[in-house]
């Protein structure tokens, strides 16, 4: 069925039509939430809440943008709220300790994989410490791989602002990681 028709029916309260939209977009919304949380259960909860929010405010959707872009905007705003509320909890693991758990473990498989996992954890911890606007743009671009145009539509920013903010975010992330990955990563590190 045509997406416009599905949206029209969903706006009229047709749960089945909305179910088809959910099937189409659940992967993207879940993946976005997972990019922020790295926790399957939390990402699942967030994705469910995003769809509920979208269903409730579907009457406001006027097809000025693509449904996917609108849904992403709903998701990003909801996830931002979640991050603000859980700010303290998300920063529980100090950056200095991130990666130690995986690097110190001896039964996780080949050594290379250990190092890689440890490094990922360090990068994730550094990402969680970035200001929200940098974290959001890095997640949309470098984790979810969205185009500049899509990000511009979702965040309602000009492409120039997307470009400069993304570059600033990458610089900040590198600054946070300089020195840290060298120690953890050995010859594979920075």
């Amino acid at each position, binding site marked *: 069925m045509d997406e416009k028709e599905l949206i029209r029916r969903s706006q009229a309260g047709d749960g089945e039509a909305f179910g088809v939209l959910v099937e189409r977009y659940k992967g993207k919304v879940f993946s976005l939430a997972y990019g922020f949380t790295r926790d399957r259960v939390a990402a699942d909860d967030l994705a*469910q809440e995003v769809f509920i929010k979208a269903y409730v405010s579907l009457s406001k959707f006027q097809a000025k943008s693509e449904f996917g872009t609108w849904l992403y905007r709903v998701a990003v705003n909801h996830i931002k709220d979640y991050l603000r509320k859980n700010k303290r909890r998300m920063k529980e693991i100090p950056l200095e300790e991130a990666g130690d758990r995986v690097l110190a473990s001896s039964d996780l498989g080949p050594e290379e994989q250990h190092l890689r996992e440890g490094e990922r954890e360090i990068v994730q911890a550094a990402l969680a410490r970035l200001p929200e606007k940098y974290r959001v743009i890095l997640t949309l671009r470098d984790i979810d791989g969205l185009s500049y145009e899509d990000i511009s539509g979702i965040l309602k920013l000009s492409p120039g602002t997307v470009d400069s903010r993304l570059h600033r975010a990458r610089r900040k992330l590198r600054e946070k990681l300089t020195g840290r990955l060298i120690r953890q990563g050995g010859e594979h590190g920075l």
Partner: protein
Amino acid sequence: MDCKKAERFLLRSLDGGLDHENRAMLQAHLENCPSCRKKDSEYRKILSLVRPQTVPEPLPYFKERLLAKLKEKDRTAPALFWVKWAHRAVALSLAAFLLFGAAILFFRPQEPREVSQTERFLLQDENPLGEAASILDQKKAEDRNMMLIFASVGDRDLSRRYRP
């Protein structure tokens, strides 16, 4: 090309947004600048690490769980609607009560204040000093005393004052 510009180009090149000419310029700079070469490899490494290796699937029965929640929401929506309005009504009543109280405090009628004799004279376009002068000008002590007594009694009606 300086290192600052090289970093800008380098960041752009991560997205493949660098044209052929600028890419060649960046490449030439990187060949001669170990510091920027290091930066380049750091950015590329971070980019490869920032993405999760695998993204799991949502938990099972994602759609079914969601639709059940929406159904529940639709079922409880009318009740929630009235609860919401009840809350609003309480809040509005409270606000109206406070406004009414504040209005009473601010606009309550004030007791007319007793005016002094001097003020009364002034209001009636009389000169209190003139009267005092006329009393003191009296030659007879008896008249002066009587006029002083009447003036001190504070009779509002000037026509009823003692005048010799």
